[in-house]
């Protein structure tokens, strides 16, 4: 499911553009403030903001990072397509927070004590295996690369919807312009800039969701009216899911719940929490965000499906929000102002997720690959400089790739493979969630399990969904191959570690 702000232009006058422009410029201003607050030239300061952030900033940065453009655009589109069955999204977003219980408290303590910067730092501390470091970093960089690519695409789509230019041109300009702003404030202030801009973006996002909630009731009437209309013409969108839909419901909770918590940028926010009290409060507050944000996105999608079904016919599902916003914009100046605010929230959601992903990839390539394998003795100043260079190269190359992919009819295979990011990320779960508690877990079996799970999951990319073979049946079972890979991974790493640890008989 790729974020897509809508294929049709949505002009809203000069005032709206000035508002959006000021909002974007304020982000650069915050980046500059972040630079002034910087205390030293070190990786710790650049990637984690020195001593870390307190409850409010942590909560809003977690919110803005986890709730991307996908939440606000993709989730409305998906719920417009499948109806209330997408309430599974509320549950899998809660499941992500539940998963943090398994490792966040201990990981935070370890990170503070040993000054971890990247997720691989923990794995290195725990297992001391270069093979695990390399494989885990590769998995996380690949997953985040795809994630960043999706955010860049979403930026282009959002600008496409904002202007009346040629769509391809608007897309390209949009990606370049927004990616440049993101890069500038990130280079200026590093993690501080990202976290502080997340505060603004998170606040605008929260306001946007609140406005959306009011809008759907004001514009389209009571929920009962919506439900009855949906039952009249698309009953399957309002009745309980069965069969495959139900299996996918469980699949999403298991897959996203487990893998979503292992996003490197989320792990780095665990490191960046100023104290465990701040982290504890931040995560407790995050437990309720699915009900405050995801649920509203679903209600918007369902409302559009009930009241404007003809607008969705033949269009991309991700256009559901745009369809509703066009309806709202027709309501005069007030309607236009609301639309501008929501679009600012969408841009904020996309950019806050994109900048976190960029910072995280840059930190891993610098700390885990450059310092870990190329130049272990490099000074902090040099590492910080390399980190910034990596960010610049990443933004340039991925922006070019995004524009290139937009001009292609279909996605290239490598990008489609990277789309299996959750199937890849979930293979890190045993090393983090079990390895942090079980002393007996050994590096060898962990590496083998991770590699086997990954290969098993990715190999399903080439397995046809329809067929009589066992692999085809697994692929079409409703559960992601990543979950089957995780089972294999668990068997190898837990079973292997138990075998290695078994008491040896002493001769004689």
């Amino acid at each position, binding site marked *: 499911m790729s974020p897509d702000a809508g294929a049709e232009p949505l002009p809203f006058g000069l005032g709206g553009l000035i508002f959006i422009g000021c909002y974007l410029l304020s982000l650069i201003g915050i980046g500059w403030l972040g630079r002034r607050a910087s205390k030293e030239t070190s990786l710790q300061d650049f990637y984690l903001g020195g001593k870390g952030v307190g409850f409010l900033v942590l909560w809003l940065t977690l919110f803005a990072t986890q709730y991307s453009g996908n939440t606000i655009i993709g989730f409305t589109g998906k719920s417009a397509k499948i109806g209330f069955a997408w309430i599974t999204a509320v549950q899998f977003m809660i499941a992500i927070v539940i998963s943090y219980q398994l490792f966040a408290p*201990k990981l935070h303590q370890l990170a503070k004590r040993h000054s971890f910067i990247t997720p691989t730092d923990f794995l290195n501390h725990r297992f001391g295996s270069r093979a695990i470091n390399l494989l885990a970093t590769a998995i996380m960089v690949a997953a985040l690369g795809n994630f960043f690519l999706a955010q860049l695409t979403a930026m282009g789509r959002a600008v496409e919807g904002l202007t009346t230019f040629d769509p391809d041109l608007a897309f390209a300009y949009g990606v370049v312009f927004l990616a440049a702003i993101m890069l500038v404030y990130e280079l200026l202030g590093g993690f501080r800039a990202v976290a502080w801009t997340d505060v603004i973006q998170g606040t605008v996002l929260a306001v946007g969701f609140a406005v959306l909630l009011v809008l759907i009731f004001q514009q389209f009437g009571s929920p009962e009216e919506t439900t009855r209309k949906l039952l009249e013409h698309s009953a399957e969108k309002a009745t309980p899911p069965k069969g495959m839909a139900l299996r996918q419901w469980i699949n999403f909770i298991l897959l996203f719940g487990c893998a979503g918590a292992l996003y490197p940028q989320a792990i780095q926010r665990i490191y960046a929490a100023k104290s465990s009290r701040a982290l504890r409060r931040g995560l407790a507050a995050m437990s309720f965000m699915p009900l405050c944000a995801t649920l509203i996105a679903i209600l918007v999608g369902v409302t559009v499906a009930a009241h404007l079904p003809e607008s969705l016919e033949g269009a991309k599902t991700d256009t559901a929000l745009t369809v509703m916003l066009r309806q709202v914009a027709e309501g005069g100046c007030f309607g236009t102002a609301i639309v501008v605010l929501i679009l600012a929230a969408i841009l904020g959601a996309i950019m806050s997720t994109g900048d976190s992903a960029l910072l995280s990839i840059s930190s891993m390539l610098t700390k885990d690959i450059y310092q870990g394998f190329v130049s272990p003795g490099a000074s902090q100043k040099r590492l910080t400089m390399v980190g910034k260079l990596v960010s610049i190269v990443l933004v340039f190359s991925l922006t070019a790739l995004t524009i290139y992919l937009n001009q292609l009819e279909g996605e290239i295979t490598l990008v489609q493979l990277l789309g299996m990011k959750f199937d890849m990320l979930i293979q890190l779960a045993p090393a983090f969630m079990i390895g942090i508690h079980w002393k007996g877990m050994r590096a060898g079996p962990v590496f083998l399990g991770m590699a086997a799970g990954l290969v098993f999951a990715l190999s399903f990319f080439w397995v046809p969904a329809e067929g009589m073979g066992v692999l085809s049946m697994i692929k079409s079972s409703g559960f992601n191959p990543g979950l089957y890979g995780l089972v294999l991974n668990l068997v190898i790493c837990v079973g292997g570690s138990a075998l290695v640890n078994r008491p040896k008989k002493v001769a004689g």
Partner: protein
Amino acid sequence: MHRRLLEKAHKWQETRNSDLELGKEMLQKLVHSVRELDSNSRKDSEIFLSENTSLINGYRVWLGELIARGCECKGLNSGLRSRLEVQLRNLEHYEELYKSDRHLWSNEREHLHKQFLRLTQETLAILRRVYWLTRLTRSTHFDRPGKTGHDPLLFPATMSRSSGFFSIRVWIVYLILFVIGIPWYWPSGDERIFLGFPLWVVVTIAVSFVISCYTARLFWNHWPSLDEEEGQE
């Protein structure tokens, strides 16, 4: 003296040629120390009621040191400290009971020992619940931190309040909530409406809210207090 003898014994064992002279020397010293003990120590019957036996005195010194270290590390709050002091008072009380006839019989001594062991175990159980014990035991119970995975913080002896996170009860509650929250048991085509939404949607959202509350409560109340900063905040 006991410690010195042990050290010598270990040294003797490590000597490959089993130095017999060293063995003889040790035996002589042992005999000497036993004689000294017999001649200089008082019998229990001669100890006044106001005095404690060496067992109580040893326990008091040991406990006092632990309390002092605990307070220094800010890991021992006043509640736990008073519980430890109650343990000590209980032990003294038992001793006074047994020595009421100014004599400690062997069976009474045995009872007192059992009581001592029980209280020591309870004391340790209390102490294990606070982080500073991990710090005290770090150098002896764990290997070097880092690559071996034997970091005391990574694998501490215990984690206080962690039971809320990792107890099987927590995960059973989650399992039950998700089993109710996932709409597998609703009849297909159910069109009942409640509060403006399909009934199954209302139930699913309500259960999701309960899951959120339960999760927030766990974060709020059951976060393992391994935090050094906690006291400072």
